[in-house]
């Protein structure tokens, strides 16, 4: 057990810190809204050039081209958190499509898409879930029929975030109707400007349209806009799902959230008594603090495994389930501490923290469900982690 950093890494931290300190005037601010705001794009370009974003993506494809080094990535993340400067763009194109193309794309696809995606000039959305294909994603029914050199796509996707802003979509489509369900899917990439695509915002319980429904009516996509072989889309998609699960549930975020609640409980009073002075509330806070620290220690353990190139095993499998649940419960404590004030939501007097705790409380419930529900996570933990048998398939009716 050694949680210290070697001099090489301490030097790297100093280097990152001074780089950020010397260039903070380049960073976009709250006023620089919009995904393609020029100041944001310039900042992203500068970050990539200095190895602070797209760090391990080869230079040939527009990245910085460093050797993967988890500790350095962590140091960079910590320095962004410490300085409060905006870190590199994080979106589904960068976290999911780029790794997929690097692994399975053709050279032409890599050349065409990775660079603009990394630089924030090309925004992607993900077309996986359908109304009839959630946890059982492989039962998806959006179909792509061959017509000359094109696929003609018809069907519907749901839970598509950033569909309105996206230039492109990576999309799972059933192209081999006669194959078994996991073997009839292809991974297609195409422009969101293609005729026949309709986007309808999907308002969720937060009363925002964080997601959309996307409808395809005779959408014509060239057959070479496929990643991997026809019918192999399930394997292609699974490569990216792995990336998504790793992305959700950040233990440092939970620690920040806990400290914010402790602060809130020292500010808020009821009958003149601070909430932190109420033993019941205080006990809830410390109970959650223990879970936050446990997830932080677990995160360190997972990181150590990855540095050594080993599987983190059970410690890795439980992150999504436990991390999302913990964040949700932290938000619940904050709301309980505010009592009736915790109900305020929207433009109204007495609002605390812009209503962020209610927004988190609801949105985090979405995260517990999205990206593999808690129940699916438990299946994965029990099957892959504990070696328990799969639920037998019912006999065909």
């Amino acid at each position: 057990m050694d949680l210290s950093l070697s001099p090489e890494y301490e030097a790297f931290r100093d280097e990152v810190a001074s780089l950020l300190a010397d260039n903070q005037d380049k960073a976009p601010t709250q006023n620089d809204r919009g995904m393609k705001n020029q100041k944001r794009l310039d900042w992203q370009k500068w970050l990539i050039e200095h190895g602070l974003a797209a760090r391990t993506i080869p230079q040939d494809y527009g990245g910085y081209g460093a050797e993967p080094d988890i500790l350095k990535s962590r140091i960079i993340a910590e320095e962004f958190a410490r300085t409060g400067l905006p870190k590199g763009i994080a979106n589904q194109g960068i976290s999911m499509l780029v790794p997929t193309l690097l692994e399975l794309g053709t050279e032409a696809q890599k050349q065409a898409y990775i660079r603009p995606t990394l630089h924030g000039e090309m925004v992607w959305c993900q077309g996986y879930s359908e109304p009839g294909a959630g946890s059982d994603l492989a039962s998806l029914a959006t179909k792509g029929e061959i017509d000359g050199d094109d696929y003609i796509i018809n069907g519907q996707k749901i839970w598509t975030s950033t569909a309105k802003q996206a230039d492109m979509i990576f999309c799972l489509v059933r192209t081999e109707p006669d194959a078994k369900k996991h073997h009839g899917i292809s991974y297609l990439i195409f422009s969101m400007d293609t005729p026949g695509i309709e986007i309808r915002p999907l308002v969720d319980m937060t009363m925002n349209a964080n997601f959309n429904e996307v409808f395809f009516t005779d959408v014509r996509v060239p057959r070479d806009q496929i990643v991997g072989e026809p019918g192999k889309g399930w394997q292609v998609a699974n490569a990216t799902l792995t990336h998504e699960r790793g992305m959700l549930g950040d233990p440092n975020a939970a620690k920040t959230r806990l400290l914010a609640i402790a602060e809130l409980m020292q500010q808020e009073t009821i009958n003149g008594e601070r909430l932190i002075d109420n033993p019941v509330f205080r006990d809830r806070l410390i109970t959650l603090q223990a879970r936050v620290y446990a997830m932080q220690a677990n995160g360190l353990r997972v990181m150590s495994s990855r540095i050594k190139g080993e599987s983190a095993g059970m410690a890795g499998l439980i992150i999504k389930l436990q991390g999302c649940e913990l964040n949700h419960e932290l938000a619940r404590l904050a709301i309980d501490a505010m009592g009736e004030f915790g109900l305020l939501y929207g433009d109204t007097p007495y609002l605390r923290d812009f209503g962020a705790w209610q927004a988190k409380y609801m949105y985090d419930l979405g995260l517990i469900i999205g990206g593999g529900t808690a129940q699916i996570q438990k299946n994965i933990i029990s099957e892959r982690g504990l070696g328990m048998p799969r639920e037998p398939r019912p006999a065909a009716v």
Partner: protein
Amino acid sequence: MEFGLSDDQRMFQDSIKGYLDSAAPLDTVREVADGGLAKGQDIVSGLTELGLDQVLVPERHGGLGLGLLDAALIQEALGSAVAPANFLATALAIVGIESVGTDVQQSEWLPKIAAGEVRFGLAIAEYVGAREGAGVTASHGLLSGKSLFAMDTQNATHVLVADTNGSLHIAAMSEGVARCPHATIDRTRDLAELVFSDTASVALTGENKPGIAANRVVQAGRLLLAADSVGAAQTMLDKAVEYAKERKQFNRVIGSFQSVKHLCAEMAAHLEPARALVWHAAHAVDENMDEAAVMVCLAKSHLAEIGTFIARTSTEVHGGMGFTDLVGLHYWFKRIGANRQLLGSPERVREDAARLQGWA
């Protein structure tokens, strides 16, 4: 930067697990719990041969000079086998003597502990929380009063006592100490009431400021109890998974039902980060990290909660058999139950964590 165990730590833990597999199988634990003292002594002797008494003793005093993380790994192995052992009291006596004994006192006692010439029990419960007005006071080298939940005193030659101010004293387990053993749920552990009547004792007089001395012992004790629960809970999870893979109902192994799988997944999902928390807290103490004291409180209280959850859930996965004496799962259930209360129930330990952070 590495968060994990060294090869040496793994090997040491494995050697203890291996020894306990052969020396302390459930039948033997059962015999000890039913009063088979000789069997219990055999296990303790075997553990002594493996060097357990030397682990925390500094090398200059004839020990191995290892840290609390190493001790935690040993305690995890002991918990996983529900082994009767006096490692906990020995370790805590070493922590007390080393941190607040004078150089002379350390040189007097630590080599003897490492050599197995003396055996320490521990009477410190009242410093954490006194019930029925119990407690021990010290005056001119004489101890008076009672300690209700002293640990590992049955075969002890000496006992380390915290007085009501939190200063530490050593007394011989002789006629001056009346001992009355408790019947508790956890028969793998030795808990007894000790009554001191002007009992001759020696105060540890190094840095023995009131409070500081006992706090260090309590901190190490809480950490080791948490580690014991990690081990016991892991065994209960393993047994539940094993049982669920074998037991058939409705022509299927019950482990193929999602209702059962999800219970097992929940146990694993709670236990895995909890283990990392205990290791992290132990390391923090070894390295004198700022957050060490808070982390130990969090580890103790958290393992009390998730230990309780796993004890209950594993029993349920075993169905009716989990409830029987025959299967013996209850030994782990009770060990986890005991760990929850000893040196502070979770509510009290969380209050300590709040106090340490200026929140109470």
